[in-house]
């Protein structure tokens, strides 16, 4: 359970990090920027859910 949560949490963190880095490296179309920003927000929300579940499960 904890191993799985760690994996999921790190995956969400990786999505946030890599999209953020990509946005900082290259100029993208506005629509693509919005899509990636939405993915970052969604991943942050899911990461919060994972943390809540982990802490709540203790």
């Amino acid at each position: 359970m904890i191993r799985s949560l760690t994996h999921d949490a790190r995956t969400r963190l990786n999505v946030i990090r890599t999209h953020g880095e990509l946005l900082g490296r290259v100029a993208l179309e506005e629509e693509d920027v919005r899509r990636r920003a939405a993915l970052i927000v969604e991943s942050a929300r899911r990461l919060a859910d994972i943390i809540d579940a982990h802490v709540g499960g203790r």
Partner: protein
Amino acid sequence: MTSTFARRAPLLVVEDDRDLREVIADSLRIEGYDVVEAEDGADALVRLRGGVCPALVLLDLIMPHMDGRQLLSEMRRDSALAGIPVVLVTGTPPQDLRGEVFATLKKPVGVDDLLRCIQACVERMPRERSTGADPRLAQQR
């Protein structure tokens, strides 16, 4: 006439999380690499046995259907795939696979970390696989 660099060896990204797989693939494509994506080990094995010949496999460990450990085992048993270098990209780096992979990167991994690792791997590749100093992994024929 066939160009010396007529065919580029892709990087194979094996990751079950679609968001992460796509953004890693996008980042590598922006850097000039050809990338093939696989959603789990089984998908990757189908692609490898179907003719995809990657210069390097970036492999997640925990995946449904066939996980990274199983894929690695299948690759090492298949003489056609055994020599393909593998980099693990995982949230839970295992100690027991150290000798079987080129490197292990712990999530969250950055684009620069990936690029450095790919470059280090390319520099160690036999020339027939990598074709020299990277030309984005062009393969000689």
